Every structure is written in C-alpha cells, then in structure tokens.
C-alpha cells in the first residue's frame, strides 16, 4: 500500500514540473493565439542561466535567488522577443507566429552549445531538499514534496491573479474576445507583452527548478515542448485548472502505467490526448472556441487560375528544371529529387491548410505511411518498383481515411493536435513493432529498379510526379469541390446553410492530402533506399508546416516555393556550416519579419500593388465583411 501512495506522490511531483511549463504556454496561447514553439527554448534557457547562477553563488540564498533571477532574466528576454519579433506578426495569418518561434528555437539550440559548451551539465541539489523522507519504508525525495506543494501554490497564485486583479480581468476578456477588448480602449500591446512575459517566466521557472533533478543540456527544449502542448490541449486551451488536471492525469497514468506496460511512456500522452479529444473535442475544461474573427487580409486578393502568361512562365520554369541533368552532377540531381519530393509533401499539406483551413501538425504520418507501404510491398511481397509506387501511397490513403474521419470533427488547434496525436501513434507503432517494421533500425535495401536508378532518371521521375501533383491539386482548387472546401473554410455555418456537407468535404480533402503526401513518401523511400520511423516523426511534420508557412498560406501554390527554398537552404547550410541551425533559424526569423505573408504571399502583394498602383482600399473593405459573422 505504501508503495502505491509513494508512486502516486512521485507522479504528482512530475505533474508539478509539467504544470509550471504548461500553464505558461496555456496563458500565452489563450490571449495572443500564438502557438509558441519557443516555449521549450525559454524553459531550456531558464535552466542554463539558473545553472550558471547557482554554481556561482552557493548557499540557500544563492540557489533560490539564482532560480528566481534566472526566471526573471528569461522573462526579460521574452519581453524583448515579443516586442521585436512577435508584435510585427500578430496580424499575419493564423499559425504564422509558429514559424517565427520555430526559427527562434533553432537558434537557441545552437546558441546554448556555443555559450555553455557541449557537455551535459549537472547542477547542485536544492539546499534544504537534498535527502528523502521515509514513508513506511519507502523513500520520497524531499524535493519532490517541495514540487508537489509548489504546483497548487502556483495554481492558486495564478487563479488569484486572474480572478482578483484588473490585469487578470483584462487577460480573461482578451482570451474570450481580444478585438472587443481592444475596441474598449485597452492597450493591447502592453497586455500582450505582459502576458507573454508571465508565460515565459513560468517556463523559465519550470526549467530552473529542474536543476536539482535533471541534467542541463541542449535538447531539453524538444523533450518538453510537445508534451506541454499535449497537456495544455488535454486540459483545454486557456484553462489553467485544466492544465493542472491534465498534468496530474498524464503523470499519474504514466507512473502507474509503467508498472503494467513498461513500454507505455513513449506513447501514453498521445493516447490520452487522442481519447480525450475524441470524447471531448475542446479538452477537459475547454469551451467551444468562439468563432475566431478571421485576420483581415485573408483572401483579400481573390484566388484566380493562372493567366496564360503565368502558365507559360510556370512551364518555362519546369522546362528549366527538366534540363538540369544536362549540366548538373549526381549530387545536385539527388538533392533536386529530394526537393521535388518535398514539393509534393508541402503542396499536399498546403492544400489542406490553405484551401481547407485545416492545419495538420501530423502530416508526416501519411508521408511515412506511403514510404512504409512501399517498403512492405518491395521487401515482403517483392513487387516491382512501378507497382510499389502505385500501391504504396494507398497505405497513406487508408491512414488518412481513418484518422481524418475523427480529426475533421474538430477544428483549429484541436484539429492540429489530434492529427499530431495520430501521427505519434503511427510513429510509435513503427518504432515498437520491431518484427514487422524493424523498429528504429528501419527497413533497408528499398532501392529503385534499374530503369530509375540513375540520378538523372530518378530526378525526372520525381520532378514529373511533383509537377503532376501540383497541377492536379491546382485544378482541384478551382473545381466545384475546391469551391465547396473553401466555403467550409470561410464559414462553416453559411456553407452548411447552402447545403454543403462540410464534414464530408473536409474528410475528402484530408484523404486527398494524405494520399498525396503518401506519393511523396513512396518516392522518398526509393530515393533513400530505406525507411525509418523518422519518416513519420514530429520533426518532419514541423518541416512541412514551415515550408507551407514560408511559402505563404494564403496563396494557391506557395507550398512549392516554400519547399524549394527551405529544403535547398537546409541541405546547403547543413553541408556548409557547423552552425546550420543558428543560420537557418536566423533566416526564418528574418523572413517572418520581412515577409509576414510568406514569400509568395508577399510577391503577390507586390504584384497587386504594381497592377493597381493605387493605395489598397480592399483590405479596409474586407474587414467588415469578414467580421460580419
């Protein structure tokens, strides 16, 4: 019995650390609607700075003072980031801020190694909480008891802050309707800055408090960021109590789950999230999202098919790409094939995001399923390459059909997180089912048949498929189906009122996007000759998002440009510099600031201006129309 009590308390201690970080994220998202990917980075910087301070100043005062000062210092960095970077992009399309914070995260990962060196750092134990307390023969670390107490205390303070102060009232009002708060004369700028500072402070505090338990190292951010997102979503976005309950739920399920299934930790949080979201689409304590007012600017320039001149230009670009093998070497061609494959991947997500308004955080699942489909067919059934290429993507199609059915019942960030959960479930199956998938050692030896083996032939194959896929998706955008899909994106209510079966349309779009991604994955398997669980992983899903956002989510085919720029730059930087993450992150941040509509989006704006050569009045007109819902 004592064991179960101690295990429960241990779970509570884990929950407390998780809650500190998650509460910060929840607050930031609730008010600013920023999916703050850099939250893990702030957590990590908090730990690093606290490590330096606590090593420098010993004693109880040095330790606790160091922890608090570190959190304050990071909050200051957060303020700086908010004022310099995020303020410029609040009015960019939804999720665009994700791109900026992603760039920051990349930079921070390289910076901490530059500043603090490559070794794992182990800090001091907390003065006064070094030992353990005996509980019927079981030991509970006293630091765990401290954390268990701290969790509810922070929860209480936050509750008081939100319920009993004017600032809290404003924050809650802004969470519900930030435009209305602004209309009532509240200085939104400072409200957002202060909220961001509080959220970052909590993240950094969470990081600093890990010093007595953990090692400080440069991958701490990725270890926590996905998990806290999941916790926030399970609890319900913007709900602090929800975040607390979710943290406890997840930690306790893990603490007791490993007693029965020792391998469960790897997937547990995602299973819980999938179940919770299917049963309660807005999380445990969340409320249905108020129909968010569309950011003005969305579809201000109505989409239109390419003019015949533009078609010729696109054709010319394709021809130029197709004659590359005449003068480029094998390496350039293989990189070209990889870029073409990522164009397929990016346009498939772009179709879902820009036309359907459904941002998937787990799109790599269908890419990877396509790759595994090919690997199974080629290695187990021994089918020829052409058959594998045709049938392999069907696995992606089936995956998208099953998961898409559940996912499209949700919208917004909940949709995104459910797709993430499904992707992680698929990933963990590929990772764990060693006898079939080879586990993380993957499936090797999936090389192309001799007709496609030479780099130039494979390049033509990949380029041809990429061109076909892009054209097909464009045709679909301007087909009746495309119009119906755009109607569901712009107004679910109105589209249903005119007789569109929105869920079915969205589901179809999801399946189309998943199958297309599967085609990319199938080609990828042959390009690399092997398939690994990585091909389904979170980082690949994030790559796809970044490509789409970089290209411009409001454009018809921005994903093409986004994929080419991001992938080419990534490969080139990794090959040329040891600080590729720092440079790439810096580049992304720069793009975000200079091109808040993405590269293609910005080009379109410029072209528009030139055509009209009069100040754009349309965006003023658009706002009342958009907000008239």
């Amino acid at each position: 019995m004592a064991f179960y009590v101690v295990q429960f308390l241990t779970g509570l201690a884990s929950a407390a650390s998780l809650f500190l970080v998650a509460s910060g994220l929840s607050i930031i998202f609730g008010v600013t609607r920023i999916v703050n990917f850099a939250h893990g980075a702030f957590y990590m910087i908090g730990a690093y700075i606290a490590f330096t301070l606590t090593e420098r100043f010993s004693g109880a005062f040095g330790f606790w003072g160091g922890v608090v000062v570190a959190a304050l210092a990071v909050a200051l960095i957060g303020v700086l980031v908010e004022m310099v970077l995020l303020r410029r992009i609040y009015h960019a399309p939804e999720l665009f801020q994700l791109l900026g914070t992603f760039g920051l995260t990349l930079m921070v990962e390289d910076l901490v190694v530059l500043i603090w060196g490559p070794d794992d750092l182990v800090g001091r134990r907390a003065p006064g909480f070094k030992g353990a307390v005996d509980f019927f023969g079981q030991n509970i670390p006293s630091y765990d008891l401290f954390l268990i107490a701290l969790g509810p205390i922070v929860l209480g303070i936050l509750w008081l802050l939100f319920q009993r102060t004017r600032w809290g009232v404003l924050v809650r009002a802004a969470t519900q309707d930030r435009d209305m708060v602004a209309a009532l004369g509240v200085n939104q700028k400072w409200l957002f800055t202060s909220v961001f500072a509080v959220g970052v402070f909590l993240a950094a505090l969470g990081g600093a408090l890990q010093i007595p338990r953990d090692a400080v190292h440069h991958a701490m951010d990725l270890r926590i960021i996905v998990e806290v997102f999941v916790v926030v979503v399970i609890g319900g976005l913007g709900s602090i109590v929800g975040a607390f309950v979710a943290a406890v739920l997840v930690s306790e399920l893990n603490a007791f789950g490993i007693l029965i299934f020792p391998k469960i930790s790897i997937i547990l949080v995602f299973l819980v999230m999938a179940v919770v979201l299917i049963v309660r689409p807005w999380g445990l304590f969340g409320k249905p999202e108020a129909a968010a007012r569309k950011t003005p600017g969305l579809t201000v320039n109505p989409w239109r098919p390419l003019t015949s001149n533009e078609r010729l230009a696109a054709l010319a670009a394709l021809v130029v790409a197709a004659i590359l093998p005449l003068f480029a070497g094998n390496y350039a061609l293989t990189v070209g094939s990889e870029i073409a494959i990522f164009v397929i991947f990016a346009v498939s997500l772009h179709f879902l995001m820009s036309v359907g308004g459904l941002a998937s955080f787990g799109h790599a699942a269908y890419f990877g399923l396509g790759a595994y489909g090919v690997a199974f067919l080629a290695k187990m059934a021994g089918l020829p390459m052409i058959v594998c290429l045709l049938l392999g993507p069907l696995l992606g199609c089936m995956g998208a059909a099953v998961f898409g059915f559940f996912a499209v019942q949700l919208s917004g960030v909940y949709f995104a997180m459910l797709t993430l959960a499904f992707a992680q479930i698929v990933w963990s199956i590929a990772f764990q089912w060693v006898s079939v998938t080879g586990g993380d050692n993957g499936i090797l030896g999936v090389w192309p048949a001799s007709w496609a083996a030479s780099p130039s032939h494979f390049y033509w194959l990949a380029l041809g498929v990429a061109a076909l896929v892009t054209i097909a998706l464009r045709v679909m955008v301007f087909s009746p189906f495309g119009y119906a899909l755009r109607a569901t994106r712009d107004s679910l209510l109105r589209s249903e009122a005119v007789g569109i079966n929105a869920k079915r349309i969205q589901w179809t779009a999801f399946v189309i996007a998943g199958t297309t991604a599967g085609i990319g994955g199938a080609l990828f398997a042959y390009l690399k000759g092997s398939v690994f669980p990585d091909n389904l992983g979170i980082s690949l899903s994030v790559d796809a998002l970044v490509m789409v956002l970089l290209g411009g989510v409001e454009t018809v085919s921005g994903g093409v440009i986004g994929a080419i720029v991001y992938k080419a730059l990534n490969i080139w930087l990794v090959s040329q510099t040891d600080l590729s993450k720092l440079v790439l992150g810096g580049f992304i941040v720069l793009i975000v600031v200079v091109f808040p509509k993405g590269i293609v989006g910005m080009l379109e704006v410029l072209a528009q201006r030139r055509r009209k050569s009069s100040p754009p009045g349309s965006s003023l007109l658009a706002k009342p129309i958009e907000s008239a819902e």
Partner: protein
Amino acid sequence: MRARNYFVGAAFAVLAGSMGHSALAQDIKIGEINSYSLLPSFTEPYRKGWQLAVEEINAAGGINGKKLVVISKDDGGKPADAQTAANELVSSEGVAMLTGTFLSNIGLAVSDFANQKKVFFLAAEPLTDAVTWSKGNKYTFRLRPSNYMQAAMLVEAASKLPAKRWATIAPNYEYGQSAVAVFKKLMSEKRPDIQWVDEQWPPQGKIDAGPVVQAVAQANPEAILNVTFGPDLVKLVREGNTRGLFKGREVVSFLTGEPEYLDPLKDETPEGWIVTGYPWYSIKTPEHDAFLKAYQAKYNDYPRLGSIVGYQTIKAAAAILAKAGSTDTDKMIAAAEGISMPSPFGEITFRKIDHQSTLGAFVGKTAQKDGKGVMVDATYKKGSDYLPGDAEVEKLRPKD
C-alpha cells in the same frame, strides 16, 4: 529521344572525366559523417580526436606521400540526412571512403548506401550488432566493440556476482533492446539460476526517473542492469541515490565509465557499479601515453572516449589506404580484411570474417574521488576474446 540520350551520355562522360580527375589529384579525401549538432557531448571530443589523427598522419608524410584530407558533414541525427551527406561526399567531393556515424540506425543507413553504391564504409561508433552481422555487407567495417562484445565483457563480471534476482532499465529503442537481449541471453547461459524480475523501458531522452526508480525498487531485485546514458542516466542516478535504490544492490551498467557520461555525475557518482568505459587517467601503456600527451598538448583538455574513437577511425582509414596503395574500393576491402594496426589501446585487427575490429573496452568499477566520478580497478578487455566462434558468426552474417 535519341538527342536526349546523347546529352545524358555526354553529361556522364564529363562527370566520369571529372571523377577520374579528382582521383588523380594530389590529396586523398576521406568523407566523415556524424551527428555533430544532435550529440555535441560525444562528437566534439570525437572531432578533436580525428583532427589530431589527420595532423599526425600528414606530419609523418601523409599516405604514401599524398596528403590526407577529411571532409566532415553533420547528419543532424537523421538517417535520411546522413544519406544526403554520404551522397554529397561520394558524388560531389569524390571521397575515397566514408567513415563516422554514431547512432545505430544512421550507421545502418550509411552502410546500406555503401552497399548499394559500392563505396567503402568504416563505421566508427554505431554499436548495433546488425552492422556487422545480420545486416552486414562486404563494404562495411566497424571500429568500436559492438553491443554483443560489451555485453559479453560485462557478463563475465556480472555472472560472478551472487545476485539471483535481476531487473533491467534500458532506453526504449534498438540499442537498449538489443543490449538487454544479449545480456540476458549470455547471462542466463552462464547462470541458469537467475530470475529476471522487472524491466523498465523509459523513452530515450525522456525518462520520468522517479516512477521508474520506484517501480524497480518495488520488484526488489538483488542486481540491476542499466543501459541508459547521457541526461537520462543523470536523472536515474539522482533519483536512485535519493530513493536509495542502489543501496545494497549490485549495478551493472553499459558505457557509464566513459568520461562523456561519468563526468557530469560529479559528486552524485554511485560507488561500485560494474561498467564499461575509458579511464584515461589510469591507463599506463606507451601507446596511450603518446596519444594522451599529443591530445593534451594540442587541446589543453583531457580526452573522452569520443576522442579515441575519432582518432582511431582516421588512423585505421589511413592504415587501410596505405596498405591498399590505391583508392579503389575492392583493393581497400582486400587491404582492410585482416589488417592489424597499433591503437592507443594496443594492437587491433579488422577481422576478415565479419569486418569487426578487435578494439576492446575497459571494464571496472565506478568510484568517487575528490567529488568526481572515476573508474577504478579497470582492466582492458581485448575485443577478440569476446566474439562468438567463427561458425556462429557465419550463421549470423548473410553471404556477400
């Protein structure tokens, strides 16, 4: 159609010409790939190690009079990116051979690439047995003692312990799984009386150490096998120390004696764990002294195990190239099979039968000295003594 084929042919002719040209050039190029950005705590010392080797080789006149150049690429911890890098090194840089890699799945991906493109690959670090056995191929050689060898070294010491009830803690991926599987198999062969009472599989890099420690303690084992390393190990040790998990229990642990993983533990270092590792401070052989002196003179820092791996990888590559007298892949393979060479750990041989080197490891016990973790009573175990017999190896390895 015919015109296009003509162009393709011309392009290939130009390409072939340029490749021939680079082979004639004065330098010999080696391509090196590792997870520099993902695992800096291992790869930074590793990089220093191979840079030292390059310097020494060129100071001694290069390879048969030609200068050795190493072109190094980062794989970011992703097999797909490692293949992109491998392709760049082979197609665009025209390297004579590929070396490096840390993670097992990346080692396998590059090995498969080497097999497909018929390129020589000297794997530095990946520990999985598959590299030389179940997925071994003609083009791939490996320097470091494999999972099997390290397990066999530990089992030798562990089987002498009186403990009968064993629990295991290992990261939930191939390395952890196969380390536990081999250890269990070899252990149970020597000690049929052993019971395996619990196993914990925390995700790599994400251990929730408190509940794991508590769960293992609940099973009340007499001895524990640990395979976690890096930050996971730190968390496990800290929780284990506070909760008294290691008190009165024997612990056998993979890799924990390597400075990369032992040094961060400082005054938390548990006493008396049986570990594999690298006690650079207590190795007193002329070969190692020379290496240590050169390393400390160049970097003003002490070597980690990564330094040894990086250093010996390039030394081995140079020895193979010198013996082959050519950068032709088949000649290099012929030269590498059975080649013997000096190393900081004494003479090593790349076996003909499975392309595994006989580089060994040190087995000893952990202890604390002046608030720092050290390995004591360490003895060097030759790799050749811990590999299965030839008949068994032939069964494990596919025919080329």
